[in-house]
């Protein structure tokens, strides 16, 4: 079904939003993902992905409180919707099935 199809980066961002749970906003996502992936993240890319996720209905957003270090501006906090959770589960299921299907000997030459 179109709409629940997840790109790789989208999946990562969505997972990070779920991970951060109560404090999932763009800067936090940039920093967490940056650390985990061990590569610098651009704010622009994350922003656009989160917008796309919201358009697909995978996340909800609301304004949070404003802080001084943001120049008094509010942040936008994201939470994963039920549809989003379903999409993540689906992606995980497909991956698991694929992993399970790999014959033991396929990676043999590496060991």
């Amino acid at each position, binding site marked *: 079904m179109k709409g629940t199809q997840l790109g790789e980066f989208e999946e990562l961002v969505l997972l990070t939003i779920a991970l951060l749970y109560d404090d999932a*906003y763009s*800067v936090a996502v940039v920093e967490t993902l940056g650390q985990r992936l061990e590569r610098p993240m*651009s*704010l622009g*890319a994350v922003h656009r992905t989160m*917008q796309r996720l919201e358009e697909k209905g995978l996340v909800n957003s609301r*304004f949070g409180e404003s802080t001084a270090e943001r120049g008094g501006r509010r942040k936008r906090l994201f939470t994963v919707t039920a549809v989003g959770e379903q999409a993540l589960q689906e992606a995980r299921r497909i991956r698991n099935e694929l992993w399970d299907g790999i014959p033991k000997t396929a990676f043999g030459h590496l060991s």
Partner: protein
Amino acid sequence: MKPKQRAQPPRWAERFLERIIAPHLREETLGDLDELFHKRGHRYGYSKARLLYLVDGLLLLHPRLWRRNSTDLRFHTSKPAPIAMLGNYFKVAIRKLNRHRSYTLINVLSLGLGIACAILIFTLIKYHLSFDTFHANRDRIYRIHTEFHGDKVRYNTGVPNPLGEAFRKGYSVAEKVGRVAFLPKRVVAVSPEKKFEENIAFADPDFLNMVNFPLVQGNPQTVLKDRNTAVITDRIAKKYFGTDDPIGKLLQVDDSLHVRITGILRDLPPNTDFRSEVYIPFDNLKDHTPWMVEKDWWFSVSDDMQCFIRLKPGVSAASVDNHVLSAISSKYYNKDMAKYFRFKLQPLSDVHFNPKLKGHTEKKNLWAFALIGLFLIMTTCVNFVNLATAQALGRSKEIGVRKVLGSERGMLFWQFMAETTVIVGLATGVAFGLACLALPLVNQLFEIELSLNLVKDPYLLTFLPAILLVVVFFSGSYPGLILARFQPVLALKGRLSQHQPGGFSLRKSLVVTQFAISQLLIIGTLVIANQLRYSQQANMGFRKDAVVVLPVPDNKKSKINTLTAQFSELAGVENVTFFDTAPASEDVGSTGIWFGSRTEAETFSISIKAGDNRYASTFGIPIVAGRDLNPSDTIREYLVNETAVKALRLASNRAVIGKTAIINGRKGTIVGVMKDFHYRSFHTGIEPLCITTRSENYSQCGVKVNLANLGPTLAGLEKSWSSMYPSSIFTYQFLDEEIDRFYKLDNMILWLIQAFAAIAIVIGCLGLYGLVSFMIAQKTKEIGVRKVLGASVPGILWLFGKEFFRLLVIAFVLAAPLAWWVMNGWLNDFVYRIEIGAGIFAVAILITLGIAVVTVGYRSLKAALANPVKSLRSD
């Protein structure tokens, strides 16, 4: 720890992003960037953070960033657009202007003056640029002209008379070749009693086919084909025959030629340089002026004998210059002369503008006018800005209330723009009226026919709104911004004024600009006036007063002798001479010279005048060596000037006496040397000149008269002249009047610059007045306090005066070198010129100073004399 100032992300980048980000994303995105910036700043230092901020900003750029969210859109359109308030803006504006009548009046007048000048200058430039642009295929029409390559190059609009025929017969690059001889001021008679002076032209039929002068009567295929026919314009036909049918009627041209009218041209448009209204076949020229069409005579070139061609499509002018016309030179001249006589094409579009080829108007003059127009518009905008900002202070309460009630900056700005539009609109109306009133004056001055017709002239119709917009924008935007920026709290308290960032320095520089423009124009006026006075009063080297110049329609020897005898009998006549051109005349021709027994022709060319044995004595030209000419009817003897002796590289004037010279192909003996005199205007220097008794060229008669008893003398001259030439019209002119005509263009420029300088000064005064009012309004309390504490009236006056004095000096420092440079360039056109002395600059600064003192003084004196009780009571 020291309190440290918080680091900030790059402000310009933040502003830029703020502008482009869609409103629904703006807050969070900028917040994110800020947060990241501060976190990174802590971690890696602020310079790196700043860099990363820019990188992030760049990476954010994506259509998603500025694409508006469809669901959010409705919240943002609820903002009332300036359009919705437009009606109200205008209503308020009109009420406001009605209340401040003097402010409105000053502004409308100064803007009106400036715009009126702009309209006139625009019309003038457009008129000149439109000259002869209405001919079909005009980009392929050229005039062949002659260049004389001696030691320097001289130009002549004409060609030798056989050239047109040689070009037509020998070469096929042109579709049409039209020879045309323009003869000014000939007598055309319908009957012996009914005669008129007209400019006539002898032209090939091809010429009339080339130019776009349509026939209203007659057959375009056959017109001018038969000899002794004529084509005249509708205007001339009406003048000659009233309502009668002119076709088939007979005309007599001068004494010799009778023609029958076969065609009527539509009246000539004003924007053409071909002003002849009577056209006669070219073949008839040999019946009328035989010497102009002497057969195979390639060595003389007359300005009036011109040749126009229309090239075939695809033929370039350069190739015709390089191949065809140079081939003509080498075919019809010997090797040396072919180098000397060269022919070139001049595009039709250049004819009106090329000063070397008798162009009517130089383009650089037009651009100078455009620049002056721009200056005037600038000063009037400056004025408006000054007055409007001064006025804005009085409106602080209104602005405060508007802001409290929810007006935004943009709305206040547009409100002010609406007000400006009303004023400028009124001013444009006034300006158009003024321009219409001034138009007859300008037309008379320039001897042109401009018209201001909004309906028929699409250019003017677009120019007016364009200038309105430009003026509204330049004069309204700055005060509008100032006004909109008022802080409501301060505005309501009436505490605005002293501390407006940047505002006052801008106003100062505006005043400096205004002063500088006024001074520039004043200096220009002074220099031009001085130079013209110098050239008109300077000694030309001959006597120019008390000589009456008459035309000589027929120079047969018997007639000249009779006329001389009759004139000499008159009581007031002292001397009579016949010649082709007066001592000072731009119409003098020049030619080559072969001196004595030298083996080669000289490299310089010599100007040649025809004059009889009484020429030098009548005009008071001293003979410094040898003797005057002997009476003769043919070329036997020559008089040369001192410059010619020098050009011949001879040591003394005596060395030239008695030698032979071949000038213009005619041999003669040099019998005398004249003292140098200015035989052209002061624009050009004195060059080699000779005078000889070539009676066939005599076309004018100079009569030295006694000024004491002028009336009867003139009547006597007219009586003898009219009985001698019954078919001609008696006209006379004093020589000094004729000389003044040289400086007609310069006088015109002087008049204009004077007018513009006066207008700039008037506008500048209004502006100064506004600025001083503004300062006084600001400082009312200060003056009150000073007076209470014992300040004197002169002390307070100086308080205002010193500021303006400083601005004036700054403006002078800017204007003086510029003025010197421009005017020096203008003076370089004159060979005999004044030097720009310190006096002119002193006068210029004194004039501006005087004007400033009067304008500023009046207003500040009023303030200084006011009772301090009044200004201090209100607090």
